[in-house]
């Protein structure tokens, strides 16, 4: 396992990458998939979605889009809890947060694999 000294830069790099991906890409996806499609302003057919998602390059894109911001979340969530005074539980909080992100990564890989 990574020691604390070397693991911090590792998680921080993932956090930074995730933050950048989230800042650049997430708003548009949210607008289209979260609001435009459900409210009927536009529609994307199942066939087109499936065709798109089956392409390897798009899969790579989707992987980055979903997995990296999970580390961004994990990092910030960990420090929110610490900043709220849960310093005594630092190690379990870190394990839980980053663990969830790793799980999410595995899940993303599995979902994309099956498409």
């Amino acid at each position, binding site marked *: 396992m990574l020691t*604390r000294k070397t693991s911090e830069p590792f998680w921080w790099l993932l956090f930074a990458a995730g*933050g*950048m991906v*989230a*800042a*650049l*890409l*997430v*708003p*548009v*996806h*949210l*607008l*289209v*998939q*979260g*609001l435009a*499609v*459900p*409210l009927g302003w*536009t529609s*994307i*057919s*199942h*066939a*087109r*979605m*499936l065709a798109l*998602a089956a392409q390897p390059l798009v899969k790579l894109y*989707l992987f980055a*889009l*979903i997995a990296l*911001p*999970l580390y*961004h*979340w994990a*990092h*910030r*969530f960990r*420090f*929110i809890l610490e*900043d*709220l*005074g849960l*310093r*005594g539980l*630092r*190690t379990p909080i870190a394990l839980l947060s980053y663990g969830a992100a790793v799980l*999410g990564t595995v*899940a*993303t890989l599995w*979902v*994309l694999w*099956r*498409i």
Partner: protein
Amino acid sequence: MTVPRVERPGLYYPKLPATWWLRNANYFRFMLRELSSVFIALFLVVFLIQLHRLPQGPGAYAAYLETLRAPGWIIFHVLALAFALYHSVTWFNLTGVVQVVHLGERQVPPRLVVGASFALWAVVSVVLLWFLLRG
């Protein structure tokens, strides 16, 4: 990991309460900024489930889309979009401070770096929007 502080007698050691972030507007905005990551992550989980429904056929996929039409989900997505935008704005403002860009010997002023980040965001968003909506 936390090293307990040795307290000297006579001194008064103030304790920072867990509600410190309600003490000033900047702290509160910081907390909102950090909280944005939760909404972004939740949206991505929703998206992941949507992708999971994709190979299960048009029926399952449509059913899932139908769930997202519920007012609760709409409210969630409005909120999430607001947080996502807040994240983007704060992120680009801050990266301008963190990332030192040099042109030759001179440092590019952070304001220019920030401006360039926002321009990049706009271009990427437009391209993405065109790609998603063209069919």
